[in-house]
């Protein structure tokens, strides 16, 4: 176990180091645009982490996760439209809005199981999507251009792409840290226990529903943060952020990286967006290649990319300890 723990820490540290070194290296090789690309990758890594918390550790297959991202992004966009640029206000607002949405929708969805849970989260996601599409004051279908980035205590530092990059990196590291603490905590053990056997967990005295709801809200807030960062990165928000395809993309990232592994979620986001980029370079029908690839991974490499870094098979034991 201890061995596995240090291994996980090593990989985490290695990944964060690579992210930290990327901008100067990219600059040195005259590939400065990579910094911009990698910002987006890290933002999706935060979203994938948040989904992994409930999907990987809690077996809650949320098919509406993009809605939280969209709500976070709109919170920043709408604030900017009303001339509120202060990030120390708008980013917590984005997280609170996504968290509230998670609380309201989770309170209903988590009363269902299995396919019904998937369908109901999908339905709530689509509701958010169509609501955003009908916000004609904020661009409606066309989306909303944001004429600048959030300020930090009145200072427009994030206008610089590299500064934004490191801001996103700090957010990613913080989320990663929080997630790893939660996974190893009492709370995390309850969530994993309910995944393993709900009836058993109830019989020993846990209110499974309450614990799952709190996990759902936590994941929603984290995804809301990713949305706020995305709005800053793109300087644009659109209902497309909330489409069910986006929710599907996030699930693919988590499955590709390895469910129930935090660095797996990050690797999954990196791999998915990199593959998308590379394959899209060959053909616009890149999904035709990506689809079969994903099937192969699910069939032959359960445990995803994270498994490649583990010595033994996809043991689930390490997850709770």
């Amino acid at each position: 176990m201890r061995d596995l723990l240090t291994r996980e820490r090593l990989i985490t540290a290695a990944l964060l180091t690579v992210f930290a070194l990327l901008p100067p290296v990219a600059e040195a090789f005259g590939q400065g645009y990579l910094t911009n690309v990698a910002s987006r990758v890290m933002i999706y890594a935060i979203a994938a982490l948040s989904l992994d918390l409930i999907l990987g550790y809690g077996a809650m297959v949320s098919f509406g996760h993009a809605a939280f991202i969209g709500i976070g992004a709109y919170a920043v966009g709408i604030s900017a439209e009303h001339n509120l640029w202060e990030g120390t206000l708008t980013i917590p607002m984005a997280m609170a809005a996504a968290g509230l949405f998670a609380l309201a929708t989770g309170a209903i969805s988590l009363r269902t199981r299995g396919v019904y849970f998937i369908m109901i989260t999908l339905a709530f996601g689509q509701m958010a999507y169509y609501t955003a599409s009908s916000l004609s004051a904020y661009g409606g279908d066309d989306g909303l251009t944001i004429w600048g980035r959030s300020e930090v205590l009145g200072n427009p530092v994030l206008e610089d792409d590299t500064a934004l990059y490191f801001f996103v990196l700090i957010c990613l590291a913080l989320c990663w840290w929080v997630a790893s603490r939660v996974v190893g905590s009492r709370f995390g053990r309850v969530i994993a226990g309910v995944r393993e056997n709900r009836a058993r967990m109830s019989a020993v005295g846990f209110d499974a529903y309450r614990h799952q709801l709190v996990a759902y809200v936590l994941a929603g807030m984290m995804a809301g943060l990713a949305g706020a960062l995305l709005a800053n990165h793109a300087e644009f928000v659109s209902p497309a952020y909330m489409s069910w395809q986006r929710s599907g993309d996030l699930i693919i990232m988590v499955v590709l990286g390895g469910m129930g592994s935090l660095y797996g979620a990050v690797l999954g986001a990196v791999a998915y967006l990199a593959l998308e980029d590379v394959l899209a370079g060959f053909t616009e029908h890149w999904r035709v290649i990506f689809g079969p690839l994903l099937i192969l991974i699910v069939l032959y490499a359960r445990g995803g990319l994270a498994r490649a870094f583990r010595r033994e098979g996809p043991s689930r034991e390490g997850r709770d300890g």
Partner: protein
Amino acid sequence: MADPILELAGLRKSYGALTVTDGVNLAVKTGAIHAIIGPNGAGKTTLINQIGGQAAPDAGTIILDGRDITGLPIHARSHLGLARSFQITNVLPGFSTLDNVAVAAQAHAGHSFRFFRSVARETALTEKAMACLETVGLADRALIRAGALSHGEKRALEIAMALATEPKLLLLDEPMAGTTHEETARLTETLEALRGRFTILLVEHDMAAVFALADTISVLVYGRVIAEGAPDAIRTDPEVRAAYLGEEEIP
């Protein structure tokens, strides 16, 4: 002995036209091992499920230690001192044996909305879990994945999980089902060792185990208690013999 720890009064449950629990009255004395026997389809598991909260009775009341628990959710009953094992083995397969018990102990040692402290450092939980594993003879299997245990070991693990919640009443639904001879003997010994420390309500088909362990036996047939008494009285009861005719051997 003191007041009964569990009292069922006029418990009734039907599935459509089929009455599965037909006005059951039952009292389990504190500290006793009380067995419920009956032929297949007598409604034993349905009765246990109503006590545990997995099924809701249509009428009647369930009193645990002086409190009406009839309408309470499962997890709330656990906090009032009810623990159970299931007829079909029911553990957390991906957790280690030790963690299975530790999480049960955790449910009864403060709340679990603690997000940052590592649970691996909560030695009190681990120690308690280890003590429960020793009681059921699984201490040397503590670090094995629960899903990899033998059937008999899983049954013992279920009992350890129940013990970790420090129950006032332990509901055991056919703990010996599907176990080998040696495992049955070992489980009987384990339960014997719990006598006096815990009150046990036991549903079991293994008559040898029942007659060896029980202080009181209630016989359930078609949802009704047709006889109740000490093992010797039950053994010779003609009505019980008739009900069991061609079913099972009464020793």
